């Protein structure tokens, strides 16, 4: 009996915890569909549902242009991270050269620095390079990620040395070993880095707000933030929520398709690291 009771309590606690995560999300989605007057109630249920908030949002802001910008920036940046960080991770895990440990230590150190600390120097750099109000300013600073380097390095270190020896004898170069041997063996790591980085860039609002002022190259979070605070939404909560819902939709779709690999990678990288 006590076992069953314990289990019941456990499930209740877990359900309560799940609700604290899910409720705001459900509330937001419901808010986009409910009449404006009913949004600020606790219940996600409304008297009627419509897509009016979405229609209004589309008419007020260039949401599709910013959606394209966000996709462009996120995809290019993620592809760069996958290539460049896996190459760095490979070098740190498998190539022998002087200063390898020092370089890795510096990379790890950059992980503890808050972004706000490097914000101003980075902005100055963008101004000097003449990249303000260009896609380069949105993409280039995000083509490397210490987290991705760390994850790749840990994953690659777990691959047996003899496999690399066999590949060298078979005729693979270092690049060949990375892309024809390590990449197929590291799908979970690639997918995890891909998802985490894509989400990070997709949700980034602060940096675009600093380096981009032209509406044509604004990303979605930037657009939504400006839309919410600059008065274009005319204090209509439903409109703001609709913009936020559109923003998170691609992330949810990507995650749903790749969640199996994502969980697998998080589990195995922990064990192997």
């Amino acid at each position, binding site marked *: 009996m006590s076992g069953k009771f314990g289990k019941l309590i456990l499930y209740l606690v877990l359900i309560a915890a799940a609700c604290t995560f899910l409720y705001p999300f459900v509330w937001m989605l419901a808010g986009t569909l409910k009449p404006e007057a009913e949004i600020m109630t606790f219940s996600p249920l409304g008297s009627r549902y419509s897509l009016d908030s979405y229609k209004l949002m589309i008419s007020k802001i260039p949401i599709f242009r910013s959606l394209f910008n966000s996709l462009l920036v996120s995809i290019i940046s993620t592809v760069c991270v996958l290539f460049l960080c896996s190459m760095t991770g490979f070098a740190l895990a498998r190539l022998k050269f002087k200063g390898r440990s020092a370089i890795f230590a510096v990379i790890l150190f950059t992980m503890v620095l808050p972004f706000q600390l490097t914000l101003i120097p980075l902005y100055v750099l963008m101004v000097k390079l003449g990249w303000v109000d260009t896609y380069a300013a949105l993409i280039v600073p995000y083509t490397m990620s210490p987290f991705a380097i760390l994850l790749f390095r840990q994953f690659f270190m777990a691959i047996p040395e*003899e496999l690399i020896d*066999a590949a*060298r*004898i*078979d*005729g693979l170069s270092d690049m060949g070993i990375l892309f024809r041997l390590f990449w197929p063996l590291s799908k979970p790591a690639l997918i995890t880095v891909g998802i985490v980085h894509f989400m990070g860039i997709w949700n980034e609002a602060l940096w675009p707000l600093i380096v981009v002022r032209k509406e044509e190259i604004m990303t979605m979070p930037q657009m939504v933030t400006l839309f919410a605070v600059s008065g274009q939404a005319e204090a209509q909560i439903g409109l703001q929520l609709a913009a936020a819902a559109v923003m998170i939709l691609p992330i949810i779709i990507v995650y749903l398709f790749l969640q199996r690999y994502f969980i697998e990678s998080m589990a195995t990288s922990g064990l192997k690291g």
Partner: protein
Amino acid sequence: MEYLTGEDMAEVILENVSKIFPGNVEAVKDVSIEILDKEFVVLVGSSGCGKSTTLRMVAGLEEVTSGEIQIDGKVVNDVPPKDRDIAMVFQNYALYPHMSVRQNMAFGLKLRRYDKKEIEQRVQEAAKILELEELLDRKPKALSGGQRQRVAVGRAIVRKPKVFLFDEPLSNLDAKLRNQMRAELALLHRKLESTIIYVTHDQVEAMTLGSKIVVMNKGRIQQVDSPLSIYEKPKNQFVAGFIGSPKMNFVKGEIENGLFKGNQVTCPLTDDQKNQITSTSCMLGIRPEHLRVEDQGIDNGSIKGEVRFVESYGYETFIHINVNDTLLIARSESGNQVKINSSISVGFKPSKAHFFDQNTEQTLTS
């Protein structure tokens, strides 16, 4: 077989090869070996003796610190592994997990841009030799240890290399499979007629597979010879103790008037031994199989002691004899009735005894 046998000569020569790892760790010291075409050479020694490092230097996976390695008459010190025309089989198989058996075997050929038809022919031929035809579309994880090792061998033979390198290929297999694979490798060598360098710590593999054995210890070559010569005429105490199972018995003693005496062991020297041994202090070595209850006699060597314990394998029995707190082992035919703690006296023919210098550990007879 037409696709997998080669005409190329493949002599491998190592001249004064040394390897020093960072931290001044000298793994291989001044190693010189000449491996003839179609020879099966086994590098044997205990863990950390430098045998695998030597093999890896031949493969090009480790840089040579000093010395020269030649394959087929060409110095290959600075030639990358892929251009040395070698193939290697590893202890843990090193199969590409994301590829099928067929893809694993074909990969090296594909990278060398071989014609698709020829790749398929070679893969089929190797699969036939190694009985892998049914498994060609499986991934390595769906194979047993023995099958994986076969695939690893297959991957090597499809390349038709000048030299095959085997790095403890049977160590991960269970005893039964190891025996079976050992026989298959010997057969394969006869079929392919290729040069093989084989590394193992298992002296049974060394004795049964090699046409030439290189015994290594602490990075140095101790002896290079045929298996039988190594067994019968070990050059030093290390080789004598390493080759043979159970290992050779050693007894410290003195030689006086043509008679060895030491620790309850006596042995009259043969005329040959008398002529060759000049020092008085020495180490006598006698293999367990030459210590026999039946060989007692006035002209033979003798050992007196107490039976400590008896290991019976059915077809043979090992008697562990305590001689003044030193354990010596005698091999006897099955069914030999000896009682634990009873006194025992065993004899041996003086011609079977080996004598080593106590300081240099080198043999005193030839």
